[in-house]
């Protein structure tokens, strides 16, 4: 956490409701370049929706999101979703990589083809250029032996690493992870978390929604605790886990005592 860094992500009064009710209630946070931030909280607290809003898979109801100079904002949910807003959302997405809980690899394409598709289609890169880059990234996540395999033949950990390589191929400024290890067998979690640690060392800005409390505590620059659509507490891992300020944080962490910490 270097204080001199400018905020790369600024979220201001972000609100989002679904038919079932309000999911995000006036979320505001700034995240600096190079930060690795973990978002924790009970199921249904809105942490996944928060990530999906950040890369505009869900269009926010009101508030504003700025990432790397691209701002998406809306005054009220009654405002129509204009073409201009969608255009901004599309621009913003190019700066943000999102990794899903269930990988969402394309089953009709090989690992390599999964990685080169978006650079070729969206950025109009040549196949050669895209493949060079893809091979480099797949090596980086330790999948050099799986380049031409079908995704269905990979283990869960390999699939998730392929998904990360696929997101990185778009050269994003921010990586978002939505419970990236929740669908993995316990012995495969480590290899995925290691990739994130490596990226952190390279200075990538990352936000991870996770249940891996130990990883959150040790690897994150700081932790965001969310509950009922609000940010309850933001603090350094050691402080938050040993001496939380808020009663709700304490209540949530009680489930993990002695277990995962």
């Amino acid at each position, binding site marked *: 956490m270097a204080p001199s860094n400018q905020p790369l992500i600024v979220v201001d009064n972000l609100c989002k409701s679904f038919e079932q009710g309000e999911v995000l209630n006036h979320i505001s946070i700034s995240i600096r370049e190079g930060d690795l931030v973990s978002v924790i909280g009970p199921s249904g607290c809105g942490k996944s929706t928060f990530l999906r809003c950040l890369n505009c898979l869900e269009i926010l109801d009101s508030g504003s999101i700025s990432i790397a100079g691209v701002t998406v904002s809306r005054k009220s949910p009654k405002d129509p979703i204009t073409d201009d807003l969608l255009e901004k959302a599309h621009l913003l997405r190019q700066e943000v*990589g999102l990794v*899903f*809980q*269930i990988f*969402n690899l*394309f089953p009709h394409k090989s690992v390599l083809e999964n990685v080169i598709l978006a650079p070729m289609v969206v950025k109009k890169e040549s196949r050669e250029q895209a493949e060079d880059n893809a091979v480099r990234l797949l090596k980086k996540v330790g999948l050099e032996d799986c380049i031409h395999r079908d995704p269905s033949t990979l283990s869960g950990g390999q699939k998730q690493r392929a998904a990360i390589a696929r997101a990185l191929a778009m050269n994003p400024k921010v990586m978002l992870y939505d419970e990236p290890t929740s*669908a993995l067998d316990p012995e495969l979690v480590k290899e995925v978390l290691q990739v994130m640690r490596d990226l952190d060392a390279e200075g990538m800005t990352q936000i991870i929604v996770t249940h891996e409390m130990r990883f959150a505590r040790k690897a994150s620059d700081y932790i965001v605790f969310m509950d009922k659509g609000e940010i309850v507490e933001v603090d350094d891992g050691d402080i938050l886990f040993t001496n939380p300020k808020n009663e709700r944080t304490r209540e949530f962490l009680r489930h993990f005592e002695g277990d995962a910490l």
Partner: protein
Amino acid sequence: MRRSLAILGFAVLLALSFALPGLAEQKELRWGGDTEGGAPYMFQDPKDTKRIIGYEVEIIEAIAKQLGRKPVFVQNGWDNLIPGLQRKLYDVSIDGLEITPEHKQEVNFSIPYYATFLQLAVRRDNKTITSLEDCRGKVVGTLKQAYSHQVLEEFGGIEIRLYEDEINAYSDLVNGRLDATLFDAPIAVFYAGFNPEIKFVGPEIGRMEYGIAVRKEDKELLKEINGAIVALRDSGELRKIYDRWNLWSPMMAKEFNDYRPRQADAVMFNEWAELQRPEFTFRDRMKRYAGFMPVLGRAALTTMKVSIVAMLLAMAFGFVLAVARVFGPKPLSKLAVAYIETIRGTPVLIQLFFIFYGLPNIGIKLSPFVAGAVGLGLNYAAYEAENYRAGLISVPKAQMEGALALAMTRWQALRHVVIPQAFRLVLPPLTNDFISLLKDSSLVSVITMVDLTKAYGQLATTYYDYFGTGIIVAGIYLLLGLPFVRLARWAEGRLAKVGNMARLEEETTEELIASKDGIL
């Protein structure tokens, strides 16, 4: 004779309003008829299936000669002869068309060129039925929508069985399903007269007059044809035709006021009779079937051409419909749904009639082939759209999100991620539909095309042989469909596996997540 023309009132109504006076062609006399009508009216020459013979053919050719015109035959289904006339597929129609008040509302008729009656027939051993009176409480077979049908209904108390053609009715009389049959006398003579197990009983019943149908506005042509009929009657030429076909009767003698003895040998009748002789060796039969091949081959080609063009159209347009329905903006989506529901909710036969006989109303005149391919194609497009839709919605939503998260536009995501996966899923049902289309293409016979099914009908009535011809035609259909059946099986085996993967993966991971959630 035969089915009343009013049967397809729908088509008639559609065709009615384009009665513009056309330029009668100077050289040709285009005449419409149905070769499936059978002997003695018009049918394929058993000795040369490319030729059409029959007493009606001889009459219209004699009339054309009288008018100094070249006769040109145009094939059309019997039920559609009048709509086809109004659509100007031909100048006149002749095919045992009865002059009735109903028919006269649609078209004009020439003076009658032939008059006949109905003939009751029973099994040889039957001693109880000698008149219509005796048929009360008994089962009597006749042609659907024909004058004979009307007579039986008006008589009352008779259990009526309706048939599409005379051959099956006479078979049922012989095998005991019917107690008697009532048919136009020429049909009875030609189709039951040689059967040793059938005998004719009772007096002449009713009276029918055949006339040549001409469009209402073609008054000049009607006058010329009437003149020709009178001239041919007075010269004795008509009489000779009737004698050759053994169709002269006391009724005709009275009609033409001609009581002379026979003027010509019954050559045509005797030829037909020769053909009906039961001693017919296996060799002869095979030789006859070999002779069918050029006709059936041409028909199979028509069937295949129409089916393939229609399927290509259905696949392309169905795809547009499916994408519009699933991913299009609301108005477009609703339009697609409306199209699909309308097309699926109405018979394809009506749609074909509409396109072929109806659209000329607004100036769109398509050739039979184009009308058939477009009609079937637009119809099947609705079904293919639903196939595609099923494919598209069975690709997990997460695939779309995965693509969008990589900054692809919606269309890029569809094109590169969703549609390729959906296509693999719909290939098997698509192939199945093609096989089904191959069979449905038999409907194009209603718009004058001679496809495989129509050719079957023509050959079977000519040779009185629905059995052997049927096996051959069924075999050809199977052969045509076979490559596609194999393709479907290959596609199912190879592609279903790949296509299911995304779904499977999602399901198993969801289970995993569910079990993990238990921890919290």
